[in-house]
């Protein structure tokens, strides 16, 4: 009897492995094989010669990045935009989750939630198109500015405004969805904490500061830590769908630079080198953030 069940357990493990197999093969073909293409960054790659017959140039392209006049600017833009988004992306969802929690009518609360989650599910193609329309010279925003006597602004030709526009529209798309995790944390707060605070005569503002906020602090710290991994993710999709050459000075980021250098100008080696630079730093940052999240909040991805 025992032998039979052992045999069965062995067969189950084999089936488990078989279940993993198709996905594993696909990952090898489409994730692992491209990693070999990183070699392109260390070569003077010529499509005709291929990876194996192009000339090896070592770290030439990596040094070249920092000699490019716009190379350093692109890295700077990436960092500035990403950090602005990380900070705003923490504060706004937390504040809004606290606000939603104060709304007593559950029908109203749920309707608002339904609406504010929606932009998260729309693509930057769609939203970029709408944002450009709203901000265009004869778009609705300029009509409003005009009606209060202000000169129209050609928003999409002003590099000094672009980063602000990116952060505001990014928040607009994502803050609602971002509240989910904080709302879940607020729901989990022990109700007796509120009861004893009420006993002590605490008003709702006092409760928010001394009960709710401290209770969700672990979640806030966790989300802040995890966002470290996004330090070089300034948001390709958003910028690609909103920028134009007039905005490169403040809005061109590593990912858009890689796209144009590699796939438009066909400088494969330079583009790959920039991409590898980003991938390696991102991997290090994500690993650090996961390590910290595990150490201080007991968070594990699996």
């Amino acid at each position, binding site marked *: 009897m025992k032998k039979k069940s052992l045999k069965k357990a062995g*067969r189950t*493990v084999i089936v*488990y492995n078989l279940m*993993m197999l198709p*996905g594993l093969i*696909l*990952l090898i073909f*489409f*994730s692992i094989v*491209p*990693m*070999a*293409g990183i070699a392109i960054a260390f070569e003077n790659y010529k499509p005709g010669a291929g990876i194996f017959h192009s000339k090896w140039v070592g770290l030439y392209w990596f040094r070249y990045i920092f000699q490019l006049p716009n190379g350093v600017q692109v890295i700077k833009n990436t960092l500035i935009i990403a950090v602005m988004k990380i900070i705003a992306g923490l504060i706004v969802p937390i504040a809004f989750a606290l*606000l*939603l929690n104060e*709304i*007593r*009518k559950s029908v*109203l609360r749920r*309707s608002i939630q*339904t*609406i*504010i989650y*929606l*932009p998260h599910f*729309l*693509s930057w*193609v769609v*939203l*970029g*198109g*709408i944002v450009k*329309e*709203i901000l265009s010279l*004869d*778009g*609705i925003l*300029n009509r409003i500015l005009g009606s209060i006597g202000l000169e129209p602004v050609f928003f999409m030709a002003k590099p000094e405004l672009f980063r602000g526009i990116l952060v505001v529209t990014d928040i*607009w798309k994502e803050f*609602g969805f971002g509240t989910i995790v904080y709302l*879940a944390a607020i729901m989990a707060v022990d*109700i007796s904490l*509120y009861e004893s605070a009420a006993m002590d005569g605490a008003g*709702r503002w006092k409760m928010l500061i001394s009960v709710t906020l401290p209770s969700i602090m672990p979640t806030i710290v966790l989300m802040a830590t995890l966002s470290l991994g996004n330090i070089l993710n300034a948001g390709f999709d958003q910028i*690609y*769908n909103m920028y*134009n*050459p*007039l905005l490169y000075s403040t809005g061109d980021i590593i*990912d858009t630079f*890689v796209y144009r250098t*590699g*796939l438009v100008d066909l400088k494969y080696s330079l*583009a*790959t080198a920039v991409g*590898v630079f980003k*991938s390696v730093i*991102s991997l290090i940052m994500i*690993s650090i953030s996961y390590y910290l999240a595990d150490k201080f909040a007991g968070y594990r991805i*699996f």
Partner: protein
Amino acid sequence: MIEYKNRKNRIVDLMLALLAILAALVCIFPVLHCTALSFSGAAAADAGKVTIWPVDLQLTAYKKLLEEKAFFTAFGISVKRVLLGGGINMILIIIMAYPLSKDKREFPQRNIYMWFLVFTMLFNGGTIPWYITIKNYGLLDTMWALVLPCAVQVYNIILMMNFFKGIPKELEEAAVMDGAGPFTTLLKIYLPVSLPGLATVGLFVLLYHWNNYFDGIILMNSASKLPLQSYVQQFVVSVDAKQNMTTEQLLELAKMSSRTLNAAKIVVTMVPILVVYPFLQKYFTSGLIMGAVKG
């Protein structure tokens, strides 16, 4: 919850509610504005009279859109992509999340697989090697290029795996006692009680395929093979980002394009999401939270 009865609190309640409603309106405004534009007369739209309600209501833009065959070809390609790509994604998510939801005693190789999956999620060779690899496989300009490279979605597998972990072990033990193998257990026991989880990852997968424009732009050489979002991206959204243009040229271009027609294209691109979203919304918050709970 503790009840507040006094007047001051009711005023505060009202203010907070108004603030939240205002934020929700700001969220929905661009979508309403674009929809209103698409149903408005061209003259009214250009004169900036349209806010969130159509002015000079008409279907001209949509009639014009109907003549643009290429748009609907792209729409069809996107539908095909969602069905084929999404189907493959869901099958792989289910059959990979299930064994990974077992602990190390039941599935000794689990952690090796897990590390491998997470590594492929966190690190990649970048856009250029990805493009060259798919080109070398001869997949450019085929539907497979939009479906196979993203067939294994690690994030969704982890979400589903955590969902499976939350299902009581007793259910499985009873089935195994009756002689059920892993596939039977998965199909008969796990899937029927996992509807919120399946709806959540299903929504994510659907959105991934419907919303993805970048792979279409890179991997499809002929315009007739572009999925919808890539098509709209190329012919509506970034016509002005193509070459180096001066401010004057940009202005000229903005004048020439028909904003009601462009708005109509954007609306049609959004509609499938707006239709599916309310049905899946009630699942995904609970699915997402349960999926995030560590087993």
